[in-house]
Protein backbone atom coordinates (compact mmCIF):
# COMPACT_ATOMS: atom_id res chain seq x y z
CA UNK A 1 0.00 0.00 0.00
CA UNK A 2 1.03 3.57 -0.50
CA UNK A 3 3.78 5.52 1.08
CA UNK A 4 3.26 9.05 2.40
CA UNK A 5 5.19 10.28 -0.62
CA UNK A 6 2.82 8.69 -3.14
CA UNK A 7 -0.16 10.01 -1.13
CA UNK A 8 1.25 13.47 -1.38
CA UNK A 9 1.92 12.98 -5.06
CA UNK A 10 -1.64 11.80 -5.74
CA UNK A 11 -3.07 14.79 -3.89
CA UNK A 12 -0.72 17.13 -5.76
CA UNK A 13 -1.63 15.66 -9.16
CA UNK A 14 -5.36 15.88 -8.52
CA UNK A 15 -5.02 19.41 -7.11
CA UNK A 16 -3.32 20.45 -10.33
CA UNK A 17 -6.04 18.74 -12.38
CA UNK A 18 -8.76 20.58 -10.45
CA UNK A 19 -6.92 23.89 -10.76
CA UNK A 20 -6.48 23.40 -14.52
CA UNK A 21 -10.18 22.47 -14.84
CA UNK A 22 -11.21 25.62 -12.96
CA UNK A 23 -8.95 27.90 -15.03
CA UNK A 24 -10.20 26.34 -18.26
CA UNK A 25 -13.85 26.54 -17.18
CA UNK A 26 -13.55 30.22 -16.26
CA UNK A 27 -11.73 31.05 -19.49
CA UNK A 28 -14.09 29.24 -21.87
CA UNK A 29 -17.81 29.65 -22.47
CA UNK A 30 -20.51 30.87 -24.80
CA UNK A 31 -18.98 34.35 -25.02
CA UNK A 32 -15.34 34.92 -26.03
CA UNK A 33 -13.54 36.76 -23.23
CA UNK A 34 -11.18 39.60 -24.03
CA UNK A 35 -8.76 39.55 -21.10
CA UNK A 36 -7.37 42.90 -22.07
CA UNK A 37 -10.88 44.39 -21.79
CA UNK A 38 -11.41 42.46 -18.55
CA UNK A 39 -8.31 43.99 -16.94
CA UNK A 40 -9.19 47.41 -18.36
CA UNK A 41 -12.38 47.19 -16.31
CA UNK A 42 -14.90 46.40 -19.07
CA UNK A 43 -18.21 45.96 -17.21
CA UNK A 44 -19.59 43.20 -19.47
CA UNK A 45 -16.42 41.09 -19.37
CA UNK A 46 -16.17 41.50 -15.60
CA UNK A 47 -19.83 40.57 -15.12
CA UNK A 48 -19.47 37.42 -17.21
CA UNK A 49 -16.25 36.24 -15.56
CA UNK A 50 -16.83 37.34 -11.96
CA UNK A 51 -20.60 37.07 -11.59
CA UNK A 52 -21.60 34.27 -13.99
CA UNK A 53 -18.69 31.92 -14.61
CA UNK A 54 -16.60 32.04 -11.45
CA UNK A 55 -19.42 31.37 -8.95
CA UNK A 56 -20.78 28.66 -11.25
CA UNK A 57 -17.37 26.97 -11.54
CA UNK A 58 -16.66 27.23 -7.80
CA UNK A 59 -20.14 25.91 -6.96
CA UNK A 60 -19.58 23.11 -9.50
CA UNK A 61 -16.25 22.15 -7.91
CA UNK A 62 -17.83 22.13 -4.45
CA UNK A 63 -20.88 20.13 -5.58
CA UNK A 64 -18.69 17.57 -7.38
CA UNK A 65 -16.47 17.32 -4.29
CA UNK A 66 -19.54 17.05 -2.05
CA UNK A 67 -21.14 14.24 -4.05
CA UNK A 68 -17.90 12.25 -4.24
CA UNK A 69 -17.16 12.72 -0.52
CA UNK A 70 -20.75 11.80 0.39
CA UNK A 71 -20.46 8.77 -1.89
CA UNK A 72 -17.23 7.48 -0.35
CA UNK A 73 -18.62 8.09 3.14
CA UNK A 74 -21.82 6.14 2.46
CA UNK A 75 -19.87 3.33 0.79
CA UNK A 76 -17.52 3.06 3.76
CA UNK A 77 -20.26 3.31 6.39
CA UNK A 78 -22.41 0.69 4.70
CA UNK A 79 -19.49 -1.40 3.43
CA UNK A 80 -21.39 -1.50 0.18
CA UNK A 81 -19.79 -0.42 -3.10
CA UNK A 82 -23.18 0.51 -4.60
CA UNK A 83 -24.12 3.02 -1.92
CA UNK A 84 -24.32 6.65 -3.01
CA UNK A 85 -26.42 9.70 -2.14
CA UNK A 86 -29.04 8.70 -4.72
CA UNK A 87 -29.48 5.09 -3.74
CA UNK A 88 -29.94 6.10 -0.11
CA UNK A 89 -32.83 8.37 -1.04
CA UNK A 90 -31.11 11.60 -0.04
CA UNK A 91 -31.45 13.25 -3.42
CA UNK A 92 -34.81 11.58 -4.00
CA UNK A 93 -36.01 13.27 -0.82
CA UNK A 94 -34.77 16.61 -2.11
CA UNK A 95 -36.41 16.19 -5.52
CA UNK A 96 -39.62 15.00 -3.88
CA UNK A 97 -39.66 18.05 -1.60
CA UNK A 98 -39.16 20.33 -4.59
CA UNK A 99 -41.81 18.57 -6.69
CA UNK A 100 -44.49 18.45 -3.99
CA UNK A 101 -43.81 22.07 -2.99
CA UNK A 102 -44.13 23.11 -6.63
CA UNK A 103 -47.36 21.17 -7.04
CA UNK A 104 -48.87 23.21 -4.21
CA UNK A 105 -47.79 26.43 -5.91
CA UNK A 106 -45.00 27.14 -3.42
CA UNK A 107 -42.52 27.59 -6.29
CA UNK A 108 -44.04 31.05 -6.72
CA UNK A 109 -42.58 32.08 -3.36
CA UNK A 110 -39.00 33.15 -4.18
CA UNK A 111 -36.25 31.07 -2.59
CA UNK A 112 -38.58 28.63 -0.86
CA UNK A 113 -38.12 25.56 -3.04
CA UNK A 114 -34.34 25.17 -2.40
CA UNK A 115 -35.03 25.28 1.33
CA UNK A 116 -37.69 22.60 0.96
CA UNK A 117 -35.34 20.52 -1.22
CA UNK A 118 -32.71 20.77 1.52
CA UNK A 119 -35.27 19.79 4.17
CA UNK A 120 -36.34 16.86 1.95
CA UNK A 121 -32.76 15.58 1.73
CA UNK A 122 -32.20 15.82 5.48
CA UNK A 123 -35.65 14.38 6.22
CA UNK A 124 -34.99 11.43 3.92
CA UNK A 125 -31.70 10.63 5.67
CA UNK A 126 -33.31 10.83 9.09
CA UNK A 127 -36.12 8.56 7.87
CA UNK A 128 -33.70 6.02 6.34
CA UNK A 129 -31.66 6.03 9.51
CA UNK A 130 -34.68 5.57 11.80
CA UNK A 131 -36.23 2.88 9.58
CA UNK A 132 -33.00 0.88 9.60
CA UNK A 133 -32.62 1.03 13.38
CA UNK A 134 -33.36 -2.04 15.39
CA UNK A 135 -32.55 -2.51 19.05
CA UNK A 136 -30.47 0.64 19.06
CA UNK A 137 -28.34 -0.47 16.11
CA UNK A 138 -28.61 0.23 12.42
CA UNK A 139 -27.71 -2.63 10.19
CA UNK A 140 -26.04 -1.81 6.83
CA UNK A 141 -28.35 -4.01 4.74
CA UNK A 142 -31.42 -2.55 6.42
CA UNK A 143 -30.12 0.97 5.72
CA UNK A 144 -29.68 0.23 2.04
CA UNK A 145 -33.08 -1.46 1.82
CA UNK A 146 -34.77 1.43 3.61
CA UNK A 147 -33.14 3.81 1.12
CA UNK A 148 -34.41 1.78 -1.82
CA UNK A 149 -37.93 1.61 -0.42
CA UNK A 150 -38.02 5.33 0.36
CA UNK A 151 -36.77 6.08 -3.16
CA UNK A 152 -39.71 4.13 -4.56
CA UNK A 153 -42.05 6.15 -2.34
CA UNK A 154 -40.44 9.43 -3.43
CA UNK A 155 -40.78 8.49 -7.11
CA UNK A 156 -44.45 7.74 -6.54
CA UNK A 157 -45.03 11.06 -4.75
CA UNK A 158 -43.19 12.96 -7.49
CA UNK A 159 -45.36 11.36 -10.17
CA UNK A 160 -48.54 12.19 -8.23
CA UNK A 161 -47.32 15.76 -7.65
CA UNK A 162 -46.70 16.12 -11.38
CA UNK A 163 -50.15 14.77 -12.14
CA UNK A 164 -51.77 17.33 -9.82
CA UNK A 165 -49.66 20.38 -10.61
CA UNK A 166 -50.49 23.01 -13.22
CA UNK A 167 -48.11 22.81 -16.20
CA UNK A 168 -46.07 25.87 -15.20
CA UNK A 169 -45.47 24.60 -11.69
CA UNK A 170 -44.23 21.26 -13.02
CA UNK A 171 -41.46 23.15 -14.81
CA UNK A 172 -40.29 24.57 -11.48
CA UNK A 173 -39.81 21.07 -10.10
CA UNK A 174 -38.05 19.87 -13.25
CA UNK A 175 -35.07 22.06 -12.36
CA UNK A 176 -34.31 19.67 -9.52
CA UNK A 177 -34.95 16.56 -11.56
CA UNK A 178 -32.68 17.48 -14.49
CA UNK A 179 -29.77 19.01 -12.58
CA UNK A 180 -28.02 22.20 -13.72
CA UNK A 181 -25.40 24.63 -12.48
CA UNK A 182 -26.97 27.49 -14.46
CA UNK A 183 -27.65 30.53 -12.30
CA UNK A 184 -25.36 29.51 -9.42
CA UNK A 185 -24.48 32.60 -7.38
CA UNK A 186 -21.70 33.58 -4.97
CA UNK A 187 -24.18 33.03 -2.15
CA UNK A 188 -24.67 29.44 -3.31
CA UNK A 189 -20.90 28.92 -3.55
CA UNK A 190 -20.35 30.42 -0.11
CA UNK A 191 -23.07 28.29 1.50
CA UNK A 192 -21.68 25.15 -0.14
CA UNK A 193 -18.12 26.03 0.90
CA UNK A 194 -19.03 26.59 4.57
CA UNK A 195 -21.00 23.34 4.80
CA UNK A 196 -18.38 21.39 2.86
CA UNK A 197 -15.53 22.54 5.09
CA UNK A 198 -17.57 21.80 8.23
CA UNK A 199 -18.45 18.31 6.93
CA UNK A 200 -14.84 17.61 5.97
CA UNK A 201 -13.68 18.55 9.48
CA UNK A 202 -16.19 16.09 10.97
CA UNK A 203 -15.24 13.37 8.49
CA UNK A 204 -11.49 13.81 8.96
CA UNK A 205 -12.10 13.71 12.70
CA UNK A 206 -13.84 10.31 12.44
CA UNK A 207 -11.79 9.05 9.47
CA UNK A 208 -9.68 6.66 11.48
CA UNK A 209 -12.75 5.04 13.06
CA UNK A 210 -14.46 4.86 9.67
CA UNK A 211 -11.41 3.09 8.32
CA UNK A 212 -11.76 0.45 11.03
CA UNK A 213 -15.37 -0.17 9.95
CA UNK A 214 -13.98 -1.88 6.85
CA UNK A 215 -13.32 -4.95 9.02
CA UNK A 216 -16.97 -5.12 10.09
CA UNK A 217 -19.00 -3.43 12.82
CA UNK A 218 -18.35 -6.03 15.52
CA UNK A 219 -14.65 -5.95 14.84
CA UNK A 220 -14.64 -2.15 14.93
CA UNK A 221 -16.58 -2.25 18.22
CA UNK A 222 -14.01 -4.65 19.63
CA UNK A 223 -11.33 -2.12 18.76
CA UNK A 224 -13.13 0.49 20.81
CA UNK A 225 -15.02 2.32 18.05
CA UNK A 226 -18.40 3.82 19.03
CA UNK A 227 -20.01 2.55 15.84
CA UNK A 228 -23.44 4.19 16.28
CA UNK A 229 -21.90 7.58 16.99
CA UNK A 230 -19.63 7.28 13.94
CA UNK A 231 -22.61 6.33 11.77
CA UNK A 232 -24.68 9.24 12.99
CA UNK A 233 -21.85 11.73 12.44
CA UNK A 234 -20.90 10.27 9.05
CA UNK A 235 -24.46 10.08 7.76
CA UNK A 236 -25.35 13.48 9.19
CA UNK A 237 -22.36 15.25 7.64
CA UNK A 238 -22.67 13.53 4.25
CA UNK A 239 -26.45 14.11 4.09
CA UNK A 240 -26.37 17.78 4.99
CA UNK A 241 -23.82 18.59 2.29
CA UNK A 242 -25.69 16.42 -0.23
CA UNK A 243 -28.90 18.27 0.66
CA UNK A 244 -27.21 21.61 0.04
CA UNK A 245 -25.71 20.37 -3.24
CA UNK A 246 -29.08 19.11 -4.48
CA UNK A 247 -30.83 22.30 -3.34
CA UNK A 248 -28.47 24.36 -5.51
CA UNK A 249 -28.05 22.18 -8.59
CA UNK A 250 -30.68 19.43 -8.47
CA UNK A 251 -29.86 15.79 -9.08
CA UNK A 252 -26.51 15.21 -10.80
CA UNK A 253 -25.80 11.52 -11.16
CA UNK A 254 -22.70 9.38 -11.43
CA UNK A 255 -20.23 11.51 -9.42
CA UNK A 256 -21.13 10.10 -6.00
CA UNK A 257 -21.13 6.50 -7.12
CA UNK A 258 -18.17 6.18 -9.45
CA UNK A 259 -15.60 8.79 -8.40
CA UNK A 260 -14.82 6.93 -5.14
CA UNK A 261 -14.35 3.70 -7.09
CA UNK A 262 -12.14 5.40 -9.63
CA UNK A 263 -9.97 6.88 -6.89
CA UNK A 264 -9.76 3.55 -5.06
CA UNK A 265 -8.78 1.68 -8.21
CA UNK A 266 -6.09 4.20 -9.10
CA UNK A 267 -4.56 4.68 -5.67
CA UNK A 268 -5.98 2.09 -3.27
CA UNK A 269 -5.83 4.27 -0.22
CA UNK A 270 -7.56 4.03 3.12
CA UNK A 271 -10.43 6.33 4.01
CA UNK A 272 -8.22 9.14 5.32
CA UNK A 273 -6.66 9.60 1.90
CA UNK A 274 -9.77 8.73 -0.06
CA UNK A 275 -11.50 11.80 1.37
CA UNK A 276 -9.26 14.51 -0.14
CA UNK A 277 -8.65 12.49 -3.33
CA UNK A 278 -12.39 12.00 -3.92
CA UNK A 279 -13.08 15.66 -3.21
CA UNK A 280 -10.51 16.75 -5.79
CA UNK A 281 -11.49 14.16 -8.41
CA UNK A 282 -15.25 14.78 -7.95
CA UNK A 283 -14.75 18.53 -8.20
CA UNK A 284 -12.65 18.16 -11.36
CA UNK A 285 -15.16 15.83 -13.03
CA UNK A 286 -18.13 18.14 -12.43
CA UNK A 287 -16.27 21.31 -13.45
CA UNK A 288 -15.13 19.71 -16.73
CA UNK A 289 -18.58 18.16 -17.37
CA UNK A 290 -20.29 21.50 -16.83
CA UNK A 291 -17.78 23.20 -19.11
CA UNK A 292 -18.44 20.69 -21.89
CA UNK A 293 -22.23 20.88 -21.37
CA UNK A 294 -22.23 24.65 -21.93
CA UNK A 295 -19.70 24.96 -24.79
CA UNK A 296 -20.50 21.96 -26.99
CA UNK A 297 -23.39 23.73 -28.79
CA UNK A 298 -23.12 27.16 -27.14
CA UNK A 299 -25.03 29.30 -26.34
CA UNK A 300 -27.42 26.38 -25.83
CA UNK A 301 -26.76 24.54 -22.56
CA UNK A 302 -27.25 20.79 -22.17
CA UNK A 303 -27.93 18.82 -18.96
CA UNK A 304 -24.67 18.46 -17.04
CA UNK A 305 -25.62 15.00 -15.69
CA UNK A 306 -25.35 13.55 -19.19
CA UNK A 307 -21.74 14.68 -19.43
CA UNK A 308 -20.63 13.42 -16.02
CA UNK A 309 -21.58 10.00 -17.39
CA UNK A 310 -20.26 10.52 -20.93
CA UNK A 311 -16.87 11.72 -19.63
CA UNK A 312 -16.70 9.47 -16.59
CA UNK A 313 -17.77 6.11 -18.00
CA UNK A 314 -15.00 5.62 -20.62
CA UNK A 315 -12.39 6.72 -18.08
CA UNK A 316 -13.88 4.37 -15.49
CA UNK A 317 -13.96 1.46 -17.94
CA UNK A 318 -10.35 1.98 -19.00
CA UNK A 319 -9.22 1.97 -15.36
CA UNK A 320 -11.37 -1.11 -14.71
CA UNK A 321 -9.74 -2.86 -17.65
CA UNK A 322 -6.23 -2.03 -16.55
CA UNK A 323 -7.08 -3.30 -13.05
CA UNK A 324 -7.70 -6.86 -14.16
Amino acid at each position, binding site marked *: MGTPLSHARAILILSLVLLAAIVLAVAA*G*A*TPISWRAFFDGDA*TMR*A*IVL*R*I*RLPRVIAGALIGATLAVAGVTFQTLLRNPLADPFILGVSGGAACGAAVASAFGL*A*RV*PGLVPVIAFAGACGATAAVFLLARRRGRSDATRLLLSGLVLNALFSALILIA*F*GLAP*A*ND*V*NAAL*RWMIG*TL*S*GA*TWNDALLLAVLFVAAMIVLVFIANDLRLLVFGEDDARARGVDVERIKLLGFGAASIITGAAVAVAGIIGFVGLLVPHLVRMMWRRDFRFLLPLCALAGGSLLVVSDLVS*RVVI*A*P*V*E*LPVGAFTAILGVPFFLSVLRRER
Partner: protein
Amino acid sequence: MFAVGAGDQLVATDDYSDSPPAAKRLPKVGGVQPSLERIVAAKPNRVLAPSSANYTSLAAALKANGIPLEIIRTDRVNEIPTVMQHVGDELNAPRTRDAVDAVKNGLARETRKRAKPPRILFVAWPDPLYVGGRETFVDDLYAICGAQNAVQVKAWPQYAIESVIASPPDIVLYTQHLDVAPLLRAAPELKAHAMLVTVNENHFTRPGPHVVDAAAELNRIIDQWERR
Protein backbone atom coordinates in the same frame (compact mmCIF):
# COMPACT_ATOMS: atom_id res chain seq x y z
CA MET B 1 -63.48 25.53 -32.49
CA PHE B 2 -65.33 28.46 -30.94
CA ALA B 3 -63.74 30.91 -33.36
CA VAL B 4 -65.02 29.07 -36.44
CA GLY B 5 -68.47 28.69 -34.82
CA ALA B 6 -68.17 25.01 -33.97
CA GLY B 7 -68.21 25.47 -30.21
CA ASP B 8 -71.58 23.75 -29.98
CA GLN B 9 -70.03 20.61 -31.48
CA LEU B 10 -67.64 20.25 -28.56
CA VAL B 11 -68.58 17.61 -25.99
CA ALA B 12 -65.53 17.94 -23.74
CA THR B 13 -62.15 19.68 -23.50
CA ASP B 14 -58.87 19.23 -21.66
CA ASP B 15 -58.33 20.79 -18.24
CA TYR B 16 -56.47 23.79 -19.63
CA SER B 17 -59.13 25.05 -22.09
CA ASP B 18 -60.43 28.25 -20.48
CA SER B 19 -61.16 30.58 -23.39
CA PRO B 20 -63.81 31.67 -24.33
CA PRO B 21 -65.74 31.37 -21.03
CA ALA B 22 -68.08 28.79 -22.60
CA ALA B 23 -65.10 26.39 -22.88
CA LYS B 24 -64.76 26.41 -19.11
CA ARG B 25 -68.26 25.01 -18.68
CA LEU B 26 -67.63 21.90 -20.79
CA PRO B 27 -66.76 18.55 -19.18
CA LYS B 28 -63.01 18.09 -18.66
CA VAL B 29 -61.08 14.95 -19.62
CA GLY B 30 -57.73 15.64 -17.93
CA GLY B 31 -54.45 17.40 -18.57
CA VAL B 32 -51.05 16.07 -19.59
CA GLN B 33 -52.38 12.52 -19.44
CA PRO B 34 -56.05 12.73 -20.38
CA SER B 35 -58.44 10.06 -19.11
CA LEU B 36 -59.31 7.59 -21.86
CA GLU B 37 -62.47 6.60 -19.95
CA ARG B 38 -63.76 10.14 -19.82
CA ILE B 39 -63.02 10.70 -23.50
CA VAL B 40 -64.88 7.53 -24.47
CA ALA B 41 -67.73 8.42 -22.08
CA ALA B 42 -68.15 11.79 -23.81
CA LYS B 43 -68.84 9.83 -27.07
CA PRO B 44 -66.94 12.07 -29.50
CA ASN B 45 -66.79 11.36 -33.27
CA ARG B 46 -63.26 12.61 -33.25
CA VAL B 47 -60.63 13.96 -30.85
CA LEU B 48 -58.47 16.98 -31.64
CA ALA B 49 -55.13 17.38 -29.85
CA PRO B 50 -52.27 19.91 -30.10
CA SER B 51 -48.96 18.83 -31.60
CA SER B 52 -47.16 20.05 -28.48
CA ALA B 53 -48.35 16.98 -26.58
CA ASN B 54 -47.21 13.43 -27.12
CA TYR B 55 -50.27 11.24 -27.49
CA THR B 56 -48.83 8.08 -29.09
CA SER B 57 -50.42 5.66 -26.65
CA LEU B 58 -53.64 7.68 -26.51
CA ALA B 59 -53.95 7.56 -30.30
CA ALA B 60 -53.71 3.76 -30.26
CA ALA B 61 -56.18 3.44 -27.38
CA LEU B 62 -58.69 5.77 -29.07
CA LYS B 63 -58.33 3.90 -32.34
CA ALA B 64 -59.21 0.68 -30.53
CA ASN B 65 -62.43 2.43 -29.46
CA GLY B 66 -63.14 3.60 -32.98
CA ILE B 67 -62.39 7.25 -32.29
CA PRO B 68 -59.88 8.97 -34.61
CA LEU B 69 -57.30 11.31 -33.03
CA GLU B 70 -56.41 14.32 -35.11
CA ILE B 71 -53.28 16.32 -34.30
CA ILE B 72 -53.66 20.07 -34.72
CA ARG B 73 -50.35 21.66 -35.68
CA THR B 74 -50.15 25.34 -34.73
CA ASP B 75 -46.50 25.65 -33.73
CA ARG B 76 -45.98 28.51 -36.18
CA VAL B 77 -48.15 31.56 -36.91
CA ASN B 78 -48.85 30.71 -40.57
CA GLU B 79 -50.23 27.32 -39.56
CA ILE B 80 -53.03 28.91 -37.53
CA PRO B 81 -55.35 30.08 -40.38
CA THR B 82 -54.61 26.84 -42.28
CA VAL B 83 -55.63 24.70 -39.34
CA MET B 84 -58.73 26.84 -38.68
CA GLN B 85 -59.77 26.45 -42.31
CA HIS B 86 -59.16 22.71 -42.19
CA VAL B 87 -61.05 22.14 -38.93
CA GLY B 88 -63.87 24.45 -39.99
CA ASP B 89 -64.31 22.69 -43.35
CA GLU B 90 -64.35 19.26 -41.77
CA LEU B 91 -66.99 20.31 -39.24
CA ASN B 92 -69.01 22.47 -41.64
CA ALA B 93 -68.59 25.28 -39.16
CA PRO B 94 -70.67 28.37 -40.06
CA ARG B 95 -68.12 31.08 -39.28
CA THR B 96 -65.02 29.42 -40.73
CA ARG B 97 -64.46 31.91 -43.48
CA ASP B 98 -65.05 34.95 -41.27
CA ALA B 99 -62.75 33.58 -38.57
CA VAL B 100 -59.95 32.73 -40.99
CA ASP B 101 -60.27 36.14 -42.66
CA ALA B 102 -60.28 37.83 -39.26
CA VAL B 103 -56.97 36.19 -38.40
CA LYS B 104 -55.41 36.90 -41.79
CA ASN B 105 -56.63 40.50 -41.93
CA GLY B 106 -55.81 41.05 -38.29
CA LEU B 107 -52.23 39.90 -38.81
CA ALA B 108 -51.94 42.04 -41.97
CA ARG B 109 -53.21 45.02 -39.95
CA GLU B 110 -50.64 44.39 -37.23
CA THR B 111 -47.73 44.00 -39.66
CA ARG B 112 -45.13 46.72 -39.12
CA LYS B 113 -41.85 47.78 -40.63
CA ARG B 114 -39.69 49.60 -38.13
CA ALA B 115 -36.65 51.77 -38.83
CA LYS B 116 -34.81 50.30 -35.86
CA PRO B 117 -36.14 46.82 -35.08
CA PRO B 118 -35.87 46.09 -31.34
CA ARG B 119 -34.13 42.86 -30.28
CA ILE B 120 -36.54 40.84 -28.16
CA LEU B 121 -35.82 38.02 -25.69
CA PHE B 122 -38.74 35.73 -24.81
CA VAL B 123 -38.12 34.06 -21.45
CA ALA B 124 -39.91 30.72 -21.53
CA TRP B 125 -38.50 29.74 -18.13
CA PRO B 126 -36.23 31.90 -15.93
CA ASP B 127 -34.22 29.39 -13.86
CA PRO B 128 -32.54 27.70 -15.62
CA LEU B 129 -33.02 30.13 -18.51
CA TYR B 130 -35.04 28.75 -21.42
CA VAL B 131 -35.69 31.09 -24.34
CA GLY B 132 -37.89 31.36 -27.41
CA GLY B 133 -35.51 30.84 -30.34
CA ARG B 134 -35.78 31.14 -34.11
CA GLU B 135 -38.47 29.26 -36.03
CA THR B 136 -40.97 29.44 -33.20
CA PHE B 137 -44.37 31.04 -32.67
CA VAL B 138 -42.89 34.06 -30.83
CA ASP B 139 -40.20 34.46 -33.49
CA ASP B 140 -42.96 34.69 -36.14
CA LEU B 141 -44.66 37.37 -34.03
CA TYR B 142 -41.43 39.41 -33.96
CA ALA B 143 -41.28 39.26 -37.75
CA ILE B 144 -44.89 40.47 -38.05
CA CYS B 145 -44.38 43.32 -35.58
CA GLY B 146 -41.08 44.51 -37.10
CA ALA B 147 -38.84 43.21 -34.35
CA GLN B 148 -35.89 40.80 -34.19
CA ASN B 149 -35.18 37.80 -32.03
CA ALA B 150 -32.34 38.58 -29.62
CA VAL B 151 -31.08 34.99 -29.86
CA GLN B 152 -29.77 33.06 -32.86
CA VAL B 153 -30.57 29.55 -31.62
CA LYS B 154 -33.57 27.59 -32.84
CA ALA B 155 -36.59 26.23 -30.94
CA TRP B 156 -36.84 26.48 -27.11
CA PRO B 157 -33.41 25.58 -25.64
CA GLN B 158 -31.73 26.19 -22.30
CA TYR B 159 -29.61 29.28 -22.89
CA ALA B 160 -26.34 30.72 -21.50
CA ILE B 161 -27.00 33.70 -19.22
CA GLU B 162 -23.61 35.15 -20.13
CA SER B 163 -24.73 35.42 -23.76
CA VAL B 164 -27.66 37.57 -22.62
CA ILE B 165 -25.25 39.81 -20.68
CA ALA B 166 -22.80 40.02 -23.58
CA SER B 167 -25.47 41.33 -25.94
CA PRO B 168 -28.47 42.50 -23.90
CA PRO B 169 -31.84 42.56 -25.67
CA ASP B 170 -33.94 45.74 -25.96
CA ILE B 171 -37.10 44.08 -24.67
CA VAL B 172 -37.60 41.05 -22.42
CA LEU B 173 -40.97 39.30 -22.56
CA TYR B 174 -42.24 36.74 -20.05
CA THR B 175 -45.67 35.47 -19.08
CA GLN B 176 -47.39 36.82 -15.99
CA HIS B 177 -46.96 33.73 -13.78
CA LEU B 178 -43.17 33.47 -14.10
CA ASP B 179 -40.87 34.65 -11.31
CA VAL B 180 -37.93 36.23 -13.15
CA ALA B 181 -36.16 37.34 -9.95
CA PRO B 182 -33.48 34.59 -10.19
CA LEU B 183 -32.70 35.65 -13.77
CA LEU B 184 -32.47 39.34 -12.80
CA ARG B 185 -30.19 38.48 -9.89
CA ALA B 186 -27.85 36.68 -12.29
CA ALA B 187 -28.17 39.35 -14.97
CA PRO B 188 -29.07 42.75 -13.45
CA GLU B 189 -27.93 44.25 -16.79
CA LEU B 190 -31.36 43.32 -18.10
CA LYS B 191 -33.00 45.78 -15.71
CA ALA B 192 -30.67 48.55 -16.84
CA HIS B 193 -30.62 47.89 -20.60
CA ALA B 194 -33.92 46.26 -21.43
CA MET B 195 -37.60 46.97 -21.05
CA LEU B 196 -39.11 44.10 -19.03
CA VAL B 197 -42.72 43.34 -19.90
CA THR B 198 -45.14 40.64 -18.80
CA VAL B 199 -47.39 39.30 -21.56
CA ASN B 200 -50.65 37.37 -21.60
CA GLU B 201 -49.88 33.69 -21.19
CA ASN B 202 -52.89 32.55 -23.22
CA HIS B 203 -51.99 34.76 -26.17
CA PHE B 204 -48.24 34.07 -26.27
CA THR B 205 -47.95 30.41 -25.32
CA ARG B 206 -51.10 28.94 -26.86
CA PRO B 207 -51.01 29.55 -30.60
CA GLY B 208 -54.55 29.98 -31.93
CA PRO B 209 -57.00 32.69 -33.07
CA HIS B 210 -55.66 34.86 -30.24
CA VAL B 211 -52.52 35.35 -32.36
CA VAL B 212 -53.97 38.68 -33.52
CA ASP B 213 -54.30 39.81 -29.90
CA ALA B 214 -50.71 38.68 -29.28
CA ALA B 215 -49.47 40.70 -32.27
CA ALA B 216 -51.46 43.77 -31.15
CA GLU B 217 -50.08 43.41 -27.62
CA LEU B 218 -46.54 43.10 -28.96
CA ASN B 219 -46.97 46.17 -31.20
CA ARG B 220 -48.17 48.21 -28.20
CA ILE B 221 -45.09 47.08 -26.27
CA ILE B 222 -42.71 47.96 -29.10
CA ASP B 223 -44.43 51.34 -29.66
CA GLN B 224 -43.91 52.06 -25.98
CA TRP B 225 -40.25 51.05 -26.26
CA GLU B 226 -39.80 53.34 -29.28
CA ARG B 227 -41.21 56.29 -27.33
CA ARG B 228 -38.71 55.81 -24.48
